[in-house]
């Protein structure tokens, strides 16, 4: 790894705190309660990319140059996603969750932290195959505007399609994956019918509030970047946004056990972290 930064952890902490405070006040993005270890790495990554040497110098640049801020944001928000990422989870959704949603007259699903939308489209495909896409609205939100832009386009680099096809197959796909896209030179474009029922909008889990009541909330590998206080806060937001007996899906390595609301959920599928809000 890269060795960087001052050995004086105390000073570094102050600098990072100041930087995050500055970002919050200047741009309204609140990273103050993100997990320190991760945010520290991301900040140092940006410092090196910018050719700087201290957090303070980055702060100076970010405060005065909006582009520098956007570059930093791009680093702080990690847009790692895949179609049918963790295929087993989608298989579990297909088997354990969708059958229970089928009886609803209208289904609302929220992908909190959807990044570039691969998972949203995967969900759309899943719902389509289960025959409930038409009565579903998927709300896909993220903090990162440029990621959302990509999500809106529904374009996927060609080189990823082999992996995605494998994922799709492993997630219990019922048709041919190529039913869902057209390819052009170098890119793959998902078919428009998949995006018909998707609403894409910016939403900041840290600062924004609940905006609807959902039957399923997918919030996978988002809260791993938060510290425990923020995690509790976001859990509250998710809980408030979940309909009774609605499902919460978090990342495979995440847990809700240590949040104050843990006992308000029953575990639907422990392996795939699917929880159900109690009545």
């Amino acid at each position, binding site marked *: 790894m890269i060795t960087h930064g001052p050995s004086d952890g105390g000073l570094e902490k102050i600098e990072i705190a100041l930087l995050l405070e500055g970002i919050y006040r200047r741009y309204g993005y609140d990273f103050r309660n993100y997990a320190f*270890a991760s945010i520290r790495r991301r900040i140092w990554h940006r410092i090196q990319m910018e050719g700087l040497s201290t957090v303070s110098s980055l702060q100076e640049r970010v405060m005065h140059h909006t582009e520098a801020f956007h570059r930093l944001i791009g680093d702080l928000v990690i847009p790692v996603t895949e179609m049918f990422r963790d295929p087993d989870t989608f298989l579990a959704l297909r088997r354990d969750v969708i059958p229970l949603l089928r009886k609803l007259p209208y289904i609302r699903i929220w992908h909190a932290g959807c990044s570039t939308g691969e998972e949203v489209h995967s969900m759309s495909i899943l719902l389509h195959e289960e025959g409930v896409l038409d009565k579903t609205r998927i709300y896909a939100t993220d903090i990162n505007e440029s990621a959302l832009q990509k999500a809106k386009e529904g374009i996927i680099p060609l080189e990823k399609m082999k992996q995605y096809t494998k994922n799709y197959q492993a997630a219990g796909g019922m048709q*041919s994956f*190529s039913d869902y896209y057209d390819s052009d030179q170098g890119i793959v474009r998902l078919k428009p019918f998949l995006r018909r029922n998707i609403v894409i909008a910016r939403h900041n889990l840290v600062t924004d509030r609940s905006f609807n009541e959902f039957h399923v909330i997918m919030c996978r590998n988002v809260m791993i*970047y938060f510290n425990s206080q923020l995690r509790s806060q976001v859990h509250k937001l998710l809980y408030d946004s979940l309909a009774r007996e609605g499902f919460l899906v978090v990342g495979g390595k995440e*847990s809700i056990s240590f949040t104050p609301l843990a006992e308000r959920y029953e575990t639907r599928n422990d392996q795939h972290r699917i929880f159900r809000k109690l009545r």
Partner: protein
Amino acid sequence: MKIKTKLSIGFSMLLLLLLGITSFGYERLSQMNQTMNHFYENRFEKVKVALAVRGEINSSGRIMNDIMIGDQNPKEGVDEITSRLTNAAKQFKALSGLELSDFEQGIMDGILKTAQGYTKSLKEFIELINKGEVEQAKKLYADKLRIEQRQVIDSMDGLVKTQENFLKQEMEDSRKLYGRSVQMVAFLTIAGLLLGLAIVLWVFPSITKGLDLLGKMADRFGKGRLRGFTRFDIKSQDELGDLARIFKRIALDLQVKNEREALLSGIQQRQGRMNGQIARVTELLQQGSDPKVVAQSFISEFAPVLGASYGLLYLNDPASGGVRLELSGTYAVLGEQSDASAAPSVIQSGEGLIGQSYKDAKAIVMNELPAGYVRMGSGLGTTEAKALIIQPILYEDEAIGVVELASTTGFDSENRELLFSLCDKLGTILNNIRSRQLVEELLRESQAMTEELQAQSEELICQQEELRETNDKLESQQNELRNSEQRLQQQWEELEHANEELTIKTRALEEHINRVESQNRQIAQANSELERQAIQLALTSKYKSEFLANMSHELRTPLNSLLILSEFLSENKEGNLTDKQREYMQTIHLSGNDLLKMIDEILDLSKIDAGKMDIHPEWMVLDDLTIFLDHMYTPMASAKRLSLYIRRGDDIPEAIWTDGHRLKQIMRNLLSNAIKFTDNGSVTLTIRKPNEMELNSSARRDEIHYFAFSVNDSGIGIPHEKSEHIFEAFRQADGTTSRKYGGTGLGLTISRELAQLLGGWIHLETELGKGSTFTLILPDRIPEVTSSSEDVTADLQPHSFDLTAAASESVIGVDPPSSVDNGLLHEREATFENKKILLVDDDVRNVFALSSVLEHQQMKVVYAENGREALNKLKTETGIDLVLMDIMMPEMDGYEAMRLIRENADWNSIPIIALTAKAMMDDRNKCIEAGASDYITKPINTDQLLSLIRVWLYR
């Protein structure tokens, strides 16, 4: 004396008495019986016999009288007298047989003597009678017999008389005896009664007294008044006394038992209370999760229960290693304001009594506290505690905290015991909570670490992505840098040059401006006209494109079948065609191919005409081009025994900025033409700087460097007058040429148009019979064609063109409608070009449909009818890029074929796309399991198929 003894004595006496009376009575009665018998047997018999004898004698006397009187026959009389006398003698004899006293014997003897005399006389009388001497008999009778008869009768009477006397006397005796007997019986009866009374009086009191005592006892017993039983003094030694004593003992035992039971139930009650409290402690504290909260609720709850009015609870701090005690719960502790000092919040192990108790894990009890030791109070007043107890909280003999309680009354053992038990329970609970906390903490940490790991891995993925992008960027930047260096050099020169020009142009400009102004008006006018026309034009162009596209599509479909069928036939697998027929077939096939090519070219041309041929400039490395052409045409040339030379001048840059794809297209045209029209000799491609003659073109621009791609052949050449015609669509130099050389005659037209699009032109030098040289002149950098940057001095013509284009763009948005876009208007893609696809299917219709699509995309299609043939094809054909595999086939089905393909390491990475008519999940899974990379269902959507192939051909 026992009642039993008394009763047996009494009753035996009474029995004796009864026996006496009975035996006495019996004796008297038998005596009387004897007397009676004597009366009857002796006296009465004797009298009776005597009387009978007397009667006999009397009778005989009367008979004698009768005889004498004669009344009676003497004979009969004698017999009668004889029987009478015999009878009397018998009676008498019987009488003498009876027991006779002496006196009676004397009488009897006297009688007997008399009787004997009488008998004698009688006998004499009878004899006389018998003799008939009746007078004598009368005399005898009268003298002797009568007297003697009297005597006998009298003695008989005397005997009766004596007997009567005896009888009288004996009766007298008997009466006397009876009187004595009655007296005796009366006496004995009275004596017996008296004796019975005495016995009753003797036995009864002892029984009643005993029963009375027992009754009293039973009464008390029934009422449960057992305590008084000790007062009962039992003297009597009899059975009832024994019974009473047993009763007393039972009662006393019962009393003892009752007392013991009462004691026991008291203990049990106490134990129950304690257990209740202990159960409560568990219930109350089990739910807690924070030791301090638990500690506080413990002391609040149980200090009053234990009778304490003051309490503290300290818990050790595990973080300090257990040497520090922290105040964790208080009960009724006075604050700082009161004179009592507040409890210390931290105590070290061994410090003070609490510390000591903690250290030793032993309770400390102080029952008499010195005055002022602990003050406790309420709002109304304060008082002092009398007793203090310090109890360590233990878990497995290890102290984990201390409870201190103070009371105004003192702690009894029960409360102390309860406190001990409660603290024991509390210790367990606290330990549970602590270990739970520890486990939870560890879990939390591990969860945090897992999540951190996930975050890091995501970041890593992200960074990898970035790195890759940066790498790509860096690479292209390097290229750019290299080129821009050159460009910079050029630009400097250009700039200087332009500067000079500018000054000249400024003047021209001024003149121009006036002209322009007047022209502007015309332009505006023309513009509207043009706009209208442009719309018309665009529409027309669109219709044309659509028409062409449709046409070509409609033509292409049957043509494809034609091609494939003719090829199949020409292979003559069944061997039923003559050579001639095969040749026809080949001709059909070739002509079809030409037709197909022509349609493609028409399409290209129409696109160029419609201005829809897009140009994508890129850095084209010239070496790539030459290698590509060399590979492609050397085999073709050698097939015609021609030499193909490719040369490149040294003063030519490595790369030029142009659309490589179009450049290749032009070069292919030129080269294939050259080879086509040359029968012997050579074809040479030279890349060099152009000479002045070649540069002489209206399209030339001064400030641009040009390069020449010259294709020289030693072929038939072109007549001079026709040298322009050959560039026109559908024209060849000789109308008959096509018959010999084939071709559509569109190639050159397209090449020329493309050259124009790339900013260049094609120069032709030719001599009939000696050969031709087609030279493509291209700028080193494709000119920008945005209208805004257009030179102001340029004449109006290009302007108006640009405007039209712009107008048509903006008004129509010239995209062809998607209904026409059947994948046929797609630009050809490099991805597909020259890729070899193995199509495995036994259904000819499918083979037609698919191969036409694939071949149109410049892919090479190899067929196989079944799995086995597919494997053979894979062996014999090299460089197969992708396999399209039908599943339901004869001989060897798709599954097996795929499995066998995957078993071969060489073919492991060839993408296989399975084609199946079934849409079942199972079927799909089977395909993937068998080794298919992907899957498409029939009927096959060609766009989808192309997308799939694109994905799987991506390298």
